[in-house]
């Protein structure tokens, strides 16, 4: 799958890469560091990603702001977007589901747990029919 990973933290990015490598998965990861960058990528690319992993707390354009823009776009709104965040804030959770998300994953403290969660998420989306193009 082509995954757009929207996250400002470098170590988080390392974590995802390491997890995919370790699990022997062959997903292509594009990393955007905030919502603005992600939108620019989406708009300039001919080939949209299959899945978006979205952090909420980011500089410039945060996750929820990005999500709102995404869901208003006639084409991009079909992209399954999964929130990957440390925030247990119920208000955020409700707001995300209201706007429209494909999942809300809390980043666990332990890396091992992170691996197992990500494994399940990616395996699940791998067997899904995705809106290509």
């Amino acid at each position, binding site marked *: 799958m082509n995954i757009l990973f929207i996250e400002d*933290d470098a*170590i*988080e990015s*390392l*974590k995802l890469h*390491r997890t995919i490598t370790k699990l022997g998965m062959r997903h292509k990861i594009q990393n955007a560091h905030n919502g603005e960058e992600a939108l620019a990528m989406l708009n300039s690319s001919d080939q949209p990603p299959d899945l978006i992993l979205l952090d909420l*707390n980011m500089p410039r354009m945060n996750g929820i702001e990005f999500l709102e823009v995404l869901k208003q776009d006639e084409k991009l709104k079909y992209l399954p977007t999964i929130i990957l*965040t*440390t*925030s*247990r*804030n119920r208000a*955020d959770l409700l707001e995300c589901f209201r706007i429209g998300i494909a999942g809300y994953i809390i*980043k*666990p*403290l*332990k*890396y*091992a747990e*992170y691996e197992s969660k990500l494994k399940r998420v990616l395996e699940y989306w791998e067997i899904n029919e995705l809106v290509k193009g």
Partner: protein
Amino acid sequence: MDNKEVLLLKKALERQKKARIQAEQILEQKSKELYDVTRHLQGVNERLEYLLNEKASELDGVFINIIDPYVVMDLDFNVINMNASAKEFLGYDHTTASINLAALVHKDYVEYTAHSMKSLMEIGTLKNYRAKIMVKDGTEKFVQINSSLIYDKENNPIAAQGIIRDITKEWETKELLRQQKKQLDIIVENSPLGIVLTDRGRIIKTNSTFRTMMGYKEGELQQKCVKDISSPEDVENSASLMEEMNTGKLDNFTVVKKYVRKDRSEFLAKTAVSAFKNREGKVEYQVAMIEDITEQRSLELQKEKLLKELEHSNKGLQEYAHIVSHDLKSPLRSISALATWLSEDHKHVLNEQGVNNLVMMQEKIEAMDSLIDGVLKYSSIDIGSLEIGRIDLNAIVNNIREIIFVPEHVRIVMLNPLPEIQADHTRIHQLFQNIISNAVNHIEADKGLVTVSSKETATHWHFKIEDNGVGIPEEYHKKIFEVFQSLNSQQHSTGIGLSIVKKIVDLYEGEISLQSEVAKGTVFNFSIKKL
């Protein structure tokens, strides 16, 4: 005597005879006339006497037959005559003892009586003399007397007669009414509300409270209309409501409107208007109760503003708590990942101590993570909004059994079916979970037992959670509910759990206490106010 002389004498005699006859004739006629007159007079006299008798007996009949008490007295108030009714009413009989009417008059009316008597003597009649008297049996009667003088043939007043009317009942009723009116006036005049009686917008009566509110003196408002003292902006609304009332569509209404004082300043008042209808159901008066709410309104506005500010700052605080916790937790996750990778990637170059250090590092990271969670929860208890719903506490305890780690040798038992209560689910869950997990975590006995029971009182739900754990030394019983007070250095003990418990109990206006003995166990008693 010569012939001439004789002749003259004869003539004279003749004349005298004639005159005498004439005189006799006149005398006879006059005496006949006199006789006739006498006869006539005799007849008249007889008739008069008859008439007099007749009238006297008539009067006697009238006197006896007067239903009201009737009294004749001399000019010194001594009774000369009285009818049966008077005897009965006064309780005295003039034929058996002398009665002086002045002595019966109540002392409050003595002066008035003297004055009335003077007026009777001057004018000859006295109408509507009203006084209180004391009759023989000691009861006080209120009487009304109409009286007139009786004169002798020389037209000198010799006595007075009067008809007494007993108006005690009437007077008592009047007195009662007067008293009730007085009481009513006291209520109306001392009411903290302004009270106004109007007739189709025209002011009929006001109480002093209203006049004080308006800055008018007594009487000054009487000629005015309601619209004269209302702010122009409110006139239309009031008028249309008044119209609905007058047409019978409304029996009462309440408006908040502005009134204009005499000095042209305005004040805001709550006005409740009720219709007063007559027997035909037509509106006769309107009664308005006016309450100055200027101060109240400004307090309300102030309260509203404060509440909004508080809401805003609460929201801000909660946001802040979430952001801080996020910003603290993110680097912890990075550190944890890095430490994990360090031990994964460099296992072969690390000695035992190096591996141990990394393990300890992970433990510290975990402790810090749960501390951050705890602080966030603690700070969210009173700033988050409460979502009140029905909670089945049996389900809560069952759920807690599943989500916390309960070692095999520990049992959690409900001693009685727990109630359903009205409260915020998250907070109540947190409350029970914190106490129960605290109990479970501190059990060292071979067979651990945590019991939960409940009791109901009129105002509160009381709960008891008991364990046979290590117990809490007495010196910590108070401290235990304070933030960051942990009694041991177990890694999953942040010291926040029981302070969260205390805060939730406080939030529900309950009490919490504990009894504990080291090595025996701990009992937590807490209550939650019913909603």
